[in-house]
């Protein structure tokens, strides 16, 4: 007889599931989105083809996918690294803003210095600004035991308003006051040509320097976590803070340094936004993009593995790129957003469900002869 459904937590997840589940989730997402498309009068197959071509095959498609993937790679690493130690840095967004502020200041100050020096200085400037911003919730967490989720999240808004203030509400160093109409349409100063990061161009395809830096960081962070004392301490802390303290790990310093690295990586996302793409501090553009928050999704999908973050950032970058390409009179932004939401929801849901096993419970269990009768 078949009884009610029974859901149990898996004791361990077999390897094949880790491959099959994401693929199955994508197929399921395609089916659900297909129904949605049919209901709104679109042909699913041609829409999928259009998305595929816009993200990968069309002329310049891969390059623009990389434009979206690059910041997500950094913010994904920022979240994945901190989350490894169960330090929930939700502040990648704000740390990215501060990184952009720091990197643009560095680029503006150095001006005509040799290009490699300017680029290195911008990376460092952005990283330092992101680090300092991340140290605020880190210090509060380490010494006052506040919840870093709340403090780092709230600081995102502070950083956002700070950027606004620099460009719109003050005569700051970052604001361009020279051009006519600058008082009506405030903008930031455009950085000099030495602050433009070179991409690696192969035919029509351009690989931004930021993505290369991000990929290198991913490898570095993976090695740090996997095979150093530092990473070992992180794993112990993440599993049991009491055990970490007991084994002589300086837990407070650990929180400060992990948050610094995490915030620094997000800060470089800001540097890359200025150096690779914007060349100007643009508060509105950065805030609308929400790379910091999307980075958390990237980290979750990558199961906090830095190398997987590289792949997932490309996937989500491609999805975003395809979404923008679809938008038009017959394809409203809301529909694109809904499609993207369904895809992310299914993939992430699949990851979580894979940790459970579902079975039908038999109503009458046949006694197996294990009992010792008295």
């Amino acid at each position: 007889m078949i009884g009610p459904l029974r859901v149990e937590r898996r004791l361990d997840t077999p390897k094949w599931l880790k491959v099959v589940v994401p693929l199955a989730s994508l197929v399921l997402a395609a089916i659900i989105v297909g129904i949605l498309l049919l209901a709104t009068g679109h042909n699913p197959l041609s829409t999928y083809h259009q998305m595929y071509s816009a993200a990968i095959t069309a002329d310049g498609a891969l390059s623009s996918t990389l434009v979206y993937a690059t910041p997500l790679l950094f913010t994904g690493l920022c979240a994945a690294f901190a989350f490894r130690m169960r330090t929930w840095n939700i502040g990648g967004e704000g740390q990215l803003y501060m990184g952009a502020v720091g990197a643009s200041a560095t680029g503006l100050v150095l001006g005509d210095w040799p290009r490699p020096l300017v680029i290195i200085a911008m990376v460092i400037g952005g990283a330092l600004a992101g680090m300092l911003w991340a140290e605020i919730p880190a210090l509060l967490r380490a010494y006052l035991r506040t919840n870093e989720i709340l403090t780092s999240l709230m600081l995102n808004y502070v950083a956002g308003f700070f950027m606004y203030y620099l460009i719109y509400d003050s005569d700051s160093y970052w604001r361009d006051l020279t051009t006519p109409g600058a008082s009506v349409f405030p903008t930031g100063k455009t950085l000099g040509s030495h602050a433009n990061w070179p991409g690696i161009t192969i035919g029509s395809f351009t690989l931004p320097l930021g993505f290369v830096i991000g990929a290198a960081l991913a490898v570095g962070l993976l090695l740090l976590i996997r095979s150093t004392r530092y990473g070992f301490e992180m794993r112990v802390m993440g599993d049991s803070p009491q055990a970490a303290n007991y084994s002589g790990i300086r837990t407070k310093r650990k929180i400060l340094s992990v948050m610094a690295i995490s915030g620094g990586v997000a800060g470089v996302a800001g540097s890359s936004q200025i150096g690779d793409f914007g060349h100007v501090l643009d508060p509105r553009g950065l805030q609308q993009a929400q790379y910091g928050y999307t980075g958390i999704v990237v980290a979750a999908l990558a199961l906090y593995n830095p190398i997987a973050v590289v792949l997932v950032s490309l996937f989500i970058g491609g999805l975003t790129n395809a979404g923008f390409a679809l938008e038009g009179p017959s394809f409203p932004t809301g529909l694109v957003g809904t499609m993207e939401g369904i895809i992310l929801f299914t993939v992430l849901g699949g990851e979580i469900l894979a940790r459970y096993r579902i079975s039908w419970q038999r109503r009458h269990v046949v006694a197996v002869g294990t009992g010792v009768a008295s």
Partner: protein
Amino acid sequence: MLDAGDGRAALAAPAVLASDLPAGAVGRVPKALAVQAIEMTKRFPGVVANDHVSFDAAEGEVHALLGENGAGKTTLCNLLMGLYRPDDGRLIIGGKPVRFHSPRDAQGSGIFMVHQHLRLVESMTVAENVVLGSSSPRQLRFSPRAVERTVAEAAERFQMSVDPRARIWQLSLGERQRVEILKALCRGARILILDEPTTVLTPQEADQLFSSVRDMAAAGRTVIFISHKLPEVLAVADRVTILRNGHSVTTLPTAGTDADDLAGLMVGREVSLEAVAKVTHEAGPAVLELAGVWARGDLGTEALKDITLEVRAGEILGIAGVSGNGQRELAEVITGLRPTTRGMIKIGGARLPTGDPRGAIDLGIAYVPEDRMGTGIAPNLSIAENLMLKSYRAKTMRSGPVLSSRKAIANAREMIERFDVRAPGPRTLIRQLSGGNIQKVLLARELSSQPRVLVAASPTRGLDVGATQYVRRVLRDTATSGVAVVMISEDLDEVFELSDRIAVFYNGRVVGTLKASEADRQQIGLMMAGAA
């Protein structure tokens, strides 16, 4: 405040007490069955916690459930209490089949449980705690005096003296336990489940509890007594049901059996309960010295008051005391996990920095903590990783700047071999091991650092008989090899068996230090209660 005058009939519970105790109507003749558990089964992911478990208990019987940790005692009780629902099997209470959906249903059938961790409101009086949670829709008003009288009557009836007007925080743990029992009785308990009730008691308090339990049985109540301690089961129970690996092995009358038989049934093979041999030897120089140490507890109150102790190389200093009298704080102060507020600790003459675990490790202090799973290990890391939890900083575990997993695995294999850890391999997650094997890994790690001082807190709690014997032997051998060992245990038998000297803790102070060979249980029991 509430009016005391008009509440005479207000509380429903007192009536139960008065009516169901016809004086002298109880003898020890066979009676109706109060509880019948038939083929109860409860599964959890990966385990069958109760596999067709059966037992029954008559009215007026004290029935012990005996088994090692993990044998299924707690699951069985949670089934009886309605906290879990059985996957299979039946429960019959007073001849009627029942199906509980919540503890409230169980209480409606007269089943009450006194948990190991007491559940009382500290700022309220005894009487208020007794009324708390008893639900009778008609009574909106509470008459303190009537309740106080009922509590006092019950207390006298069952020899459990406690002042009904005292506030809980003023009471000792033993007294608080009495309040829990009285609460159950006043609310109409017919069947009372006591879960490991003696862990918080001094030997005298335990004896007192046993006599109260016998009184309750004589008054027709059924007492289900959960324990893993053989002598107390033999002392208090009429019959005993032995659980092993989720099965009910057998039910026996306690008359005509002995501790060795029960231990054999509990473990599933013949065991001898012989004590670890104590070798008389000369203790060396003092290695660990505490002078006038004070420290605060988790709540900011003084948990250690002016502790002065010394432990010599080659001896075991046993720390006896009822749980919560400063023993945990003592261990944490010595191991650097808790800062001292005054006083000085010296290791081999060198001053121990306060509140610095790494400093303590570097001075040669090893620690087997009471909270094995939470503090002693990182449960989701492998055996090899847990074994290097304190040595990963050393050059021997590295090749260049990188941690060498080859060296970690080799080190783990050696430890697994030497300490007889039963595990599939060094890469197995440590949480998948049994409690005994986890404790072996912990000991292996702590002792491999060549410590000068070993602090072991409740080192055998929750372990099976075999692992307990093993751990005790290792502790003894460690002392013999010249380490100063501090062993904290709530199990007085263990303290007597292993220690060279015994320090008794009460209320954050050392009330006395005695040679184990000259101490007697009676005297130590009184000291544990603060009476000597």
